[in-house]
């Protein structure tokens, strides 16, 4: 199953997408593709292994996805979610929590509100650490599942024209994904309100590698692109509610707004969505965001198998 491994992932931390080369990312995607049948059939590949999910911040979906991936490979999971934090933490710092929990588990998946938390955890833990989202910063497994979805839908990533729409400043998934995409030969369109533009440090890095066009409206973008990656715009980001209402409306995707879309347009969304994609899009062939959720499990299975050194 994992034969042909030229890149060794055993024991490795997954902290930032920037820690990975194109070759390594492609290897993860290939492994995911090989492992996908097991997501239906199940496997005993990781029997006896334990994943600890340490979620210092709520994110039911990501946590369930990791746990499901581990179970599908025959492993088991322990952990806590934000609700139980009061009893778990008692003022203990992350470094101590990690050095305690590592005795209970073979791999840790960590979500934390502070930026750089996963990197710090990895420095203290002897077992590998997977960043399940830290601060407004990065979410590498989401980027990998997004890439996997694009590759699966389109056959390859090179050559794609991709638009990101929505909150590109605070949306943590778009930062990791932008970095990852800049390793491929793609064209990127960044559509956001002025106040929610892609962060400067991300822009600087990706602009050196791929063509990037920044826009404040969706005008004429939809007919151009192969992939439309939509993100949520949060009300809290706007001091003025009227401004929020205006912005929100102008980025809303519905069946009508897709009338000039390419036939094989793929629409993705990291979920949860609020109303940036209308329900009438769900039944179009463009909508692939629920497949994305499935692919998330597949990619996390691949990562767990790789870093725990599973052999078939």
């Amino acid at each position: 199953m994992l034969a042909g491994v030229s890149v060794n992932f055993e024991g490795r931390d997954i902290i930032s997408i920037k820690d990975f080369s194109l070759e390594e990312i492609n290897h993860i995607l290939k492994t995911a593709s090989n492992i996908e049948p097991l997501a239906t059939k199940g496997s005993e590949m990781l029997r006896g292994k334990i994943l600890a999910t340490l979620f210092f911040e709520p994110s039911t979906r990501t946590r369930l996805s990791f746990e499901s991936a581990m179970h599908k490979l025959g492993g088991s999971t322990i952990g806590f979610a934000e609700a139980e934090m009061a009893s778990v933490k008692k003022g203990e710092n992350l470094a101590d929590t990690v050095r305690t929990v590592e005795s209970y588990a073979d791999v840790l998946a960590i979500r934390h509100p502070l930026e750089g938390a996963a990197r710090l955890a990895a420095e203290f833990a002897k077992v590998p650490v997977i960043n399940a989202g830290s601060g407004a910063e990065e979410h590498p497994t989401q980027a990998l599942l997004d890439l996997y979805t694009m590759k699966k839908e389109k056959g390859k990533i090179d050559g794609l024209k991709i638009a990101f729409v929505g909150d590109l400043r605070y949306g943590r998934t778009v930062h990791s994904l932008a970095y990852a995409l800049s390793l491929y030969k793609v064209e990127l369109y960044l559509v956001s309100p002025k106040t929610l533009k892609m962060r400067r440090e991300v822009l600087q890095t990706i602009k050196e590698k791929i063509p990037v066009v920044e826009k404040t409206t969706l005008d004429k973008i939809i007919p151009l692109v192969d992939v439309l990656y939509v993100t949520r715009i949060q009300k809290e980001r706007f001091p003025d509610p009227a401004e929020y209402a205006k912005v929100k409306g102008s980025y809303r995707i519905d069946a009508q707004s897709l009338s000039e879309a390419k036939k094989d347009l793929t629409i993705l969304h990291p979920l949860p969505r609020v109303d940036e994609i209308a329900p009438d899009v769900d039944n179009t062939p463009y909508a692939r965001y629920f497949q994305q959720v499935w692919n998330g499990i597949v990619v996390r299975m691949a990562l767990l198998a790789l870093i725990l050194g599973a052999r078939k």
Partner: protein
Amino acid sequence: MRIKVFYLCLVYKRFWLEVSCVSERELRVSKIKDGTVIDHITGGHALDVVKILGITGHEKRPITVAIHVPSKRLKTKDIVKIEGRELNPQEVHKIALLAPHATINIIRDYKVVKKQEVKLPSVIDNIIKCVNPACISNSDEPVRAKFYLESEEPLVLKCHYCGCIIEKKDVLEQF
């Protein structure tokens, strides 16, 4: 010819001392016996260097500060001379953040006995804090802030933990 050059040098040196440490003709700053001369400080940053070294002016020792004097190597430079004090490596690194071309001269018995060009290490450890309040290095963890040197001039540092970028103005605010 040789004599003439020698003479010119003397004149030059003298002129030099005048502009850097002496208010023309009237006052003459005496040489340091033992201490440190920080030379080739990026023009305009002498007072920041003084601040980094925690010099308040209440010390009972002579300190000379020269700002924007002409320099061969730099367009203009600043100089700080401190009697009776030598710098520790931590202080030298802090100076390097603001004045990457500075030279530290150790003076003993009126003579330069050691000359060291400051050098910023590629990893800067425990000298400054991350400016990102949401960075894990600013929370209650047993770690010290750590940065990678991306560029010396203009100064660009990148936080090891949160990846955030720090510039000269951010560094100045911390000293």
